[in-house]
């Protein structure tokens, strides 16, 4: 069945909203599969990416309306993370519209059905994933499970509460995410192909020597790769540390 949709619903608003659609017999396309979580704030981008890697064509995260989260601010946490992931999807041409955050109240059965129908249509128009998508999705998963981005995302609500500029913060998150993406693409290349030197990796990934070298240094610093010999082209060869991650 195409498109396959995974919908994460919070226990307090969206899931009862979907129940209410059922009780009212509001019809919607058969494509959506609902996963219940206690709060939309529990929806780690890692879970969303796992859904895409496992074959979903679109993922929706549904929570309580702003200001009505059963757990105060979980819905904002979800929105911030999915927005960032959406940005990366667009940047890597995976189609940001495959991802959507929606607020569904327990009484909004009709809205649940309408939004689901609309989303299924949107994803149908974007089409199926291309071959190369899986690799990028796995790099994204590494990025969102990586310490640096998680720390930055985790600090967001407190920073914003204490007066940080929201737009600036968003830009910073995007910058960190992009840097991390590069780093984990380098790691993925080494993991797949064994030992390689900086120049070869840079060419493979279409990155500059400088930024590739920075990625190597970061990965070495984190203990994920180690230095090897000097290659024939006089560039340092690095290898992936097995057994890590």
């Amino acid at each position: 069945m195409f498109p396959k949709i995974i919908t994460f619903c919070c226990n307090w608003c969206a899931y009862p909203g979907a129940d209410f659609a059922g009780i009212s017999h509001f019809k919607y396309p058969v494509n959506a599969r609902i996963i219940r979580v206690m709060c939309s704030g529990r929806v780690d981008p890692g879970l969303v990416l796992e859904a895409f890697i496992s074959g979903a064509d679109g993922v929706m995260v549904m929570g309580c309306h702003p200001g009505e989260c059963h757990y105060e601010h979980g819905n904002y946490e979800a929105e911030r993370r999915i927005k960032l992931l959406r940005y990366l999807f667009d940047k890597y041409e995976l189609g940001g519209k495959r991802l959507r955050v929606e607020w569904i109240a327990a009484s909004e059965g009709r809205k649940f059905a309408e939004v689901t129908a609309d989303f299924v249509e949107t994803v149908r128009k974007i089409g199926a994933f291309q071959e190369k998508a899986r690799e990028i999705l796995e790099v994204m998963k590494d990025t969102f499970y990586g310490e640096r981005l998680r720390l930055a995302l985790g600090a967001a609500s407190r920073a914003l509460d204490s007066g940080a500029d929201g737009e600036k913060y968003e830009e910073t998150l995007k910058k960190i995410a992009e840097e991390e993406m590069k780093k984990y693409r380098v790691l993925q290349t080494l993991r797949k192909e064994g030992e390689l030197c900086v120049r070869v990796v840079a060419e493979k990934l279409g990155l500059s020597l400088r930024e590739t070298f920075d990625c190597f240094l970061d990965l070495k610093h984190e203990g994920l790769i180690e230095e090897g010999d000097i290659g024939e082209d006089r560039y340092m060869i690095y290898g992936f540390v097995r057994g890590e991650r």
Partner: protein
Amino acid sequence: MEEMRSERVRTGVYVCHCGVNIAAIVDSAGVAKFASSLPGVVIARDYLYTCSDPGQEMIRNDIKEYGLNRVIVASCSPRMHEPTFRKVVEEAGLNAYLFEMVNIREHCSWVHTDKEKATEKAKDLVRGAVARASLLEPLERMKVGVIPACVVVGGGVSGMFAALSVADKGFKVYLVEKETSIGGHMAQLDKTFPTLDCSACILTPKMVDVARHKNIELITYAEVESVEGYIGNFKVRVKKKARYVDEEKCTGCGECAKVCPVTITNEFELGLSGRKAAYVPFPQAVPLVYTLERDRCMRCGLCEVVCEAEAINYEQRDEELELEAGVIIAATGYDTFDPLKKPKLGYKEFPNVITGLEFERLINSSGPTGGEIVINGKEPKDVVFIQCVGSRDKEIGNEYCSRFCCMYTAKHALLTREHIPDANITILYTDVRAFGKGFEEFYNRARDEGIKYVRKEIDAKIWTERCDSDRVMVNVEDSMGVRGFEADLVVLATGATPRSDAKEFARILRISQRADGFFMETHQKLQPVDTPTGGIFLAGCCQSPKDIPDSVAQACAAAARASIPLMKGEVEIEPLIASVDEAFCVGCRSCEMICAYEALSFDDKKRVVVVNEALCKGCGSCSTTCPSGAMSVKHYMDRQVFAQIDGLLSPGGIM
């Protein structure tokens, strides 16, 4: 836990037909057959009504016979029967959290029409549950004590009866009322349908009972500001506004009001008369304590001079109270529809046009006219009642029926007949809804008294215009044409709307509203006074419009439900909470910052974060935040959700 993991998973899957609710669209037998081929599944059956007694018995027997250590029921929403089946597996010795439910009714058979595709979806959902269930872990519920007290919010007839019922069972009740007196809308009514009992005569003794009850602490002129905690242990912060009169000392003699030189609008009389800045809303107010409205007070000091009880206290300040209670009953009532939202009706434009509630005050012998119906200084002869004002009106967003206006209009008509025997009385109705006990008889009595019932269609256009110096013409236009009715008095049967602050109060209680704005119960039929937030119950019109008998019945129901945890003295708390893997915690404290409940704290000695199990609500935001993978939330761990995702989507994966 290691031991558990090494034990082989033996899963039983039960696919329900729910009569034809599921089986008409989903091939339940086919889904069961499919399930039997899934890893770990040792028995899969389909059954007509799995929730029935024999259905439950079947599961209990299978657990023993096949040595099942996971049970999956594919039927209705877990919000409906998860507690039922958790109990079933527990009775057979299996941990309740090794049970998993699949929703193939609300999320499948009821919302799809293509049988084949719906059956495929049901199979996917079951496969997701089987995968997830194999990784579930047994969890123990925590027991916490229950503070033996109840907070009732709202002192109308519903709140009063809820308070009395809980208090009579021997528990402490805090009754918090926004106004200066309890009584609510019912105190404003003249007679009550269909018995024509005098409203005040039946209500005021109950108001006194509330005030005198040794277990009830009445907190009037006060509003709930915040609610923290959970079932058994709520902390309710209440702001008690300053009356500038000492409640303990005031004797209710009324000398202060007599000398007070300031006259302002009396809200209780809906502006039909005035009151002083030192006032009680009505003579039978409970508590009978005067209030000084300082915003309007001239600071003349006369009240202080005449008050022999020395109760006047200009220095009084608002008070912040913190109430501790195990349960909360919301009985916040309703607002009457504001007819200014339908300007063509001419309310406020013509003095002849009044609302139903204003009519109640007009015919009340203790009301502003002493019970005489007087409009423009004389007794009206032609009286027109317009039904469904603000009810059953999609245009203004109130699709629902307010349930009490048909009958109160019949009552108004009968009372008009009693006061003015030769009056020409017309009721413009949509449908007469006379569904309650004695209602049809009451309606017939109105017809027998010569009251003309004239039908208008539900979407009829209605407008009023001046027809001579002090009369108005009520015009009705629908498919039967345009009809006009001359009137000296027009009474609008205004319906009920949610309280203007219902949204804010729902947020404070963490409960939901229906699309129409009234508070949402857990299940309309089976849990009509419970809310999904444990320990919070609903009574009266805050849940939906209802008349006095229904309000009282529901209030007693809410009290009975709320008393269960109070009587048990302890409640079980869902163990779906955060847990820290200390080996992975790096002590960054990101989770501590994100937690809305201060449930996480840093252990200085161990250099790791620890979870306070009583405070954690299990939202899982900490798990989403943790950079090292140390934090997880029980029952919704990454690997459990991953397994469900893979199960839902396989066979598959990209490519």
